[in-house]
């Protein structure tokens, strides 16, 4: 138990984000039941909860500290989840912050999320951008192409939509994508190499 998988990819494949990060050691923990495709890009200390699906070409980069992803999250192609602190919060000598991502979150194709804290049941629609000063609570929907950069905390069930990032409060939380996750769990292993889970419950 506690087996740590060291990513054996050559260093030049690590993306250069122009920052000095200690990424020599990748510590990826994949809990049983999670489905992580081999072609996904995982950097740093990452824990992936059971039932979560990480598509090929998705990248999760734990730059500033560990990332812990909850259960039944759906992380689609070209998604970038980056744990990166704002400039003014860097180089502080206190403990390393952990990016906690709750359960049942959906990260749609090509979204870019740098949020320091993400609750549960959120949907990040295609090509949206959430900056590293935006805290996301539960049941929020960030609409396709919306860019949130200003410092703010999204209250529960907030819906951001449209080119001007209009906001409205939803009635219910978005439905969890259980059917989609079920289908993908069956389909993905047929066509992709899957990273083995390396943690026991």
């Amino acid at each position: 138990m506690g087996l740590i998988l060291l990513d054996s990819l050559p260093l030049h494949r690590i993306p250069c984000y122009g920052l000095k990060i200690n990424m020599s050691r990748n510590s990826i923990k994949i809990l049983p039941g999670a489905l992580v495709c081999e072609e996904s890009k995982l950097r740093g200390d990452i824990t992936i909860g059971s039932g979560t699906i990480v598509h090929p070409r998705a990248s999760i980069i734990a730059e500033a500290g560990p990332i812990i992803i909850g259960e039944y999250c759906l992380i689609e192609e070209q998604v970038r989840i980056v744990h990166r602190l704002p400039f003014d919060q860097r180089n502080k000598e206190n403990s390393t912050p952990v990016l906690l991502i709750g359960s049942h979150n959906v990260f749609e194709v090509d979204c870019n999320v740098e949020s320091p804290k993400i609750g549960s049941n959120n949907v990040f629609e295609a090509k949206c951008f959430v900056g590293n000063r935006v805290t996301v609570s539960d049941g929020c929907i960030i609409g396709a192409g919306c860019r949130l950069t200003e410092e703010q905390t999204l209250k529960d069930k907030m819906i951001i939509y449209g080119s001007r990032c209009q906001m409205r409060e939803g009635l219910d939380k978005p439905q969890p994508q259980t059917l989609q996750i079920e289908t993908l769990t069956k389909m993905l292993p047929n066509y992709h190499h899957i990273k083995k889970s390396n943690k026991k419950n």
Partner: protein
Amino acid sequence: MSYIITPDIVRYACTCGLLKPISNLYFCRYCTQLRCSFCVCHEVDTNFCGKCSENIPSSEARVKKNRCGNCYICPCCEQELSTRIASTKTLSDTEDTKTTPKKMYYLSCQFCRWSSRDVGIPDQSTVTGGWPERENVHANQLQELVDMYKAIVLAQKQQQEKDKKKQRGKYLSYTDRTGVTAAALRKRIGLPAELTHPLLRSKPKEPEPAVAKTEVEKLPIELFTEPINLMDITTVDQRLLQPEAQPTTVDKLFPVHKQLSIKRTLRCKSCEHNVSKPEYNPSSVKFKIQLFAYYHIPEVRIVTVEPLRAGQSCELILKFTNPSQHQTTITILELNLEQQEVEEAEVAPSFDNMENLSLQEKQQMSLPSMLSQPSSLMSMSTRSPTITVKPRKISENVNCDVDVPSSTFILPPRDDAAEYDDSGDTHNIQDDTKLVKWRKSNKAYVKLNVTPKEDLGLNSDVVCGFTMQHVYTNTITGQMDKKEPQKYDHKVKVFLHLGKLVGSE
């Protein structure tokens, strides 16, 4: 296809004097003239709903206030609402389990996730809904006003007709001949002089006018004390989407019927022929008639341009493409804006006199020849022009001279199969190698020398222009007993934005 969206680098002068990219121009084959959206008649062809693709006759569309009866848009973000099936879980909870669970439907917006449940509209049992329509509180007053104005219009019409009758019988009237007017006669026999129209006398009752009040309700104190929750308040856009209700809070946002779209017929103002007519079927994007300039006028594109320096000649490579099925010869002529105005001024009066011309003259003019007469006159159809559009002055600041080449060049007809033909071109065209640099099928790459004006400042936009004369083959037959396709020399003024001026080396 980038020329559709890029800024208008190459623009053509329409007959009316406006400059447009070729994709926005039409070409009337009957007048052999360019037309643009400003110089054609726009007519509504069909009304249809863009969501359910249903054609709606114009009379019905008017009754429905140009909205679709079945489709709704989101009151929150104005996207189309889709009907969704509600989960039947709640029904199975009821004790009466024997009845089959009924499918319920609600409206939902895929974009902002608004749903008809947000405002408490009950789910419906049918797909099409029968969604509750909200009564307009001012409906009665509006109807009264409409009725009144309708009656006034009717009365006015009848009055006009009566006036006409009066005029017609002016000199037959006995009183008029004797100089005794009806009013005078009436006065003499002791009746009121003014005889008001019977319909005007029985004027429809006017609705009660609005009364101004001095006492108004005070603003609720909460308005100043309570913090407002922006999530509950509607935006200006949302209020104006429903002008009759103008909801101020989000709980009063109700689905709005989708506005109908139209298909347009475009008609040449000079000869009344259609230049664009869409197919009737709303789901079809094809046209019955599409006289787009793109299919008739050679297209000019900039391939390369040397760095532009004031007063220095630089090389410009243009690509000419022949879109038509007929060979054409292109001559580049000098752009002479002043002379062109004189020419057009000469044309205009004779254009107006067309109706008075004898048949003989008309036939003379229609002789298939390449005379110096303006092509617009030769191709005149038998129909008389309805509206003559006076061309406006072309407003383009041309600040670059073009060396007009002495020779012309030929563009072979378009051949769709040529794309797949690797055997090379078989046209055997003798080209002036100084002018034509390279050619392939119906395209030719032509070198021109341009010289920006001496006094141009750095970074100023360099614009050059020339007149492109091409041979246009008109294939309309049966008109004026023409059997053979007619060939015309058609001239178009082309303007090119070459880019910014750079400094000297």
